[in-house]
C-alpha cells in the first residue's frame, strides 16, 4: 500500500493541434512519479514540465476527477480508461504501471467523435442522440404525487443500473465497430423500466436509433467489449432490451 516512486516512464501521446491538422505521436520521458498519484495527476505533471520547457501542453478532457462526470476519455495502452476495471481515467492510479514502461495514450477513435485537439474529442453526438428522444415528455408542474404510481424495487434497481451511465464514450471507444449501442440502450432501459418512461418507450427507441445511425456510429456485433470497459459496468442485456423495444416498434407500424 505504501506509495513507491516510478523513476522513469515514457509517455507516448497523440498530438494534433486542431481538427483540420494532421496528428502524430510524440514521446516524452517523465521522472519520479508516485504510484499513489492518479493518472491525470501524472498528466498534470507532464504538462507542467512541458510548459516550463516552452512547449505546448497536452490537451485532455477532465473535470470532476472522482469518476462521475464522464469527461475524462483517454485510451491508454490499448484500453479505454486504461488497465483497470470499473474506473474512469481519473480513478486510474499509477500503481497500475511499472517503472520504465512506455505508456501509449490515444484519443477516443470514432468517426462520430472527431478530435478537437490532442486527446480531446467532440462528443456532442451523444447529446444529439439523447435530444432525439432520451427523455420523458412531461413539463414542470402538474405531475402526480411521487408515490402515486408504485414502482417495484427490482424495476427501480434495474433502471438505476442503466441510469448509472456517465456518457463518457468508453463503450464506443472499446467497440471494434465504434457502436454507441450500449450508450443508447442504457438510456432506453433506464426509462423503459419505469412506468413513467414506459409510455413512450417504443417511440424513444426508434428515434434514438435513427439518430445514432445518422451520426455515423457503427452497428453492434455483440462482442461485449463495451460492458467490460464501461466504468459503470453497464450490462449488454440492456442492448437486448433495446433490440426488443426497437423490433416491436418497427413491426407494430
Amino acid at each position, binding site marked *: 500500500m505504501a506509495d513507491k516512486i516510478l523513476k522513469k516512464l515514457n509517455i507516448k501521446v497523440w498530438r494534433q493541434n486542431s481538427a483540420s491538422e494532421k496528428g502524430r*505521436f510524440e514521446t516524452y520521458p517523465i521522472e519520479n512519479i508516485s504510484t499513489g498519484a492518479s493518472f491525470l495527476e501524472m498528466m498534470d505533471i507532464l504538462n507542467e514540465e512541458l510548459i516550463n520547457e516552452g512547449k505546448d501542453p497536452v490537451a485532455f478532457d477532465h473535470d470532476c476527477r472522482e469518476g462521475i462526470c464522464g469527461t475524462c476519455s483517454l*485510451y491508454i*495502452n*490499448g*484500453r479505454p480508461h486504461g*488497465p483497470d476495471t470499473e474506473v474512469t481515467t481519473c480513478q486510474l492510479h499509477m500503481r497500475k504501471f511499472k517503472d520504465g514502461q512506455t505508456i*501509449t495514450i*490515444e484519443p477516443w*477513435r*470514432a*468517426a*462520430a467523435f472527431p478530435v478537437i485537439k490532442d486527446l480531446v474529442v467532440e462528443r456532442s453526438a451523444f447529446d444529439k442522440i439523447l435530444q432525439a428522444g432520451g427523455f420523458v415528455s412531461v413539463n414542470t408542474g402538474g405531475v402526480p404525487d411521487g408515490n402515486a404510481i408504485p414502482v417495484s424495487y427490482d424495476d427501480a434497481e*434495474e433502471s438505476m443500473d442503466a441510469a448509472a451511465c456517465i456518457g463518457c464514450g468508453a463503450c464506443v471507444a*472499446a467497440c*471494434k*465497430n*465504434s*457502436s454507441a*449501442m450500449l450508450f443508447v440502450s442504457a438510456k432506453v432501459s433506464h426509462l423503459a423500466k419505469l412506468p413513467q418512461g414506459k409510455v413512450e418507450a417504443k417511440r424513444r427507441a426508434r428515434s434514438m*436509433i*435513427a439518430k*445514432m*445511425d445518422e451520426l*455515423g*456510429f*457503427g*452497428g*453492434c*456485433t*455483440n*462482442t*461485449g*467489449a463495451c460492458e*467490460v*470497459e464501461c466504468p459503470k459496468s453497464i*450490462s*449488454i*442485456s440492456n*442492448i*437486448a*432490451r*433495446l*433490440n*426488443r*423495444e*426497437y*423490433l*416491436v416498434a*418497427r413491426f407494430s407500424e
Partner: protein
Amino acid sequence: MSNFLFASIGKKFIMSISGIFLFLFISVHLTVNLLLIFDDSGELFNLGAHFMATNLIIKIVEPILGLGFVVHILWSLVLSYQNFMARPIGYLTKSRSVSSTWASRNMLILGSLVLVFLVIHIINFFWDIKFNPGKLNTVYINGGEIEDTYTLVASLFKASVIYDILYIIGGILLGIHLSHGFWSSFQTLGLNNRNWMKRLQRISYIYAVIIATGFAIIPLYFLIKF
C-alpha cells in the same frame, strides 16, 4: 421497410434471422452426415441422402436456404463495411483480448473461411449430387434403386488425407463461428436478459462444440479407420 433493412438494428436482425435459419440447416445436415459413421456399408447414409433429396419439404426449403446463405453473406459485407467506416483512424495499440473473445471480433474472417470451405464442399459433393447425377453410381436398397451417395463421400475421405484435414478444419471453423453467432442471434432479437445472458452463452458453446466435433469426427473416422 427499406430503411428498416438498412438501419443498424435492422441489418443485425437480418443477420440474426438468416443465421438462425442456417443453424437449423446445419443441425439437420449434421444429423444426416453422422449416418456415415454408423454404417460402413453405406446403406443407412444412402437412405438418408435419398430421403433428403426427394422429400417435398426439403425441396421447398432448399432454395430458401440458398437465399439465406446469400443474404447472410451480403448483409455481413454491408455491416462490416459500415462498421469499418465508423472508425476512419484506428488505434496504435489495442488490448482487445481483455474485453472480448477472438471469435466475436473476427466473425467476418471466420465466416469467409467457412465460405471458402463451403465452396470446396459444394464442388466436391453437392454439385455432382444435384446437377451431375450421371457421375453417381446407383445401389439397390429394399428393392428400390437410389443414388450411391455414400461411395461418393466415403471414397473422397478414404482417398485423401488432405481433404480429411480440410474437412476437420472446416468443422472447427464453423464451430468457432457459431460459438459467437448462436447466442448473438438471440441477443439481437432481444430474446435475452441478465439472467439468460450466461445461460445462452453456455448453450452457444455447447452447440458450437457439438457441431464442430460432429462435422470433424466424420473425416476423422475415415482417416483412422481406413
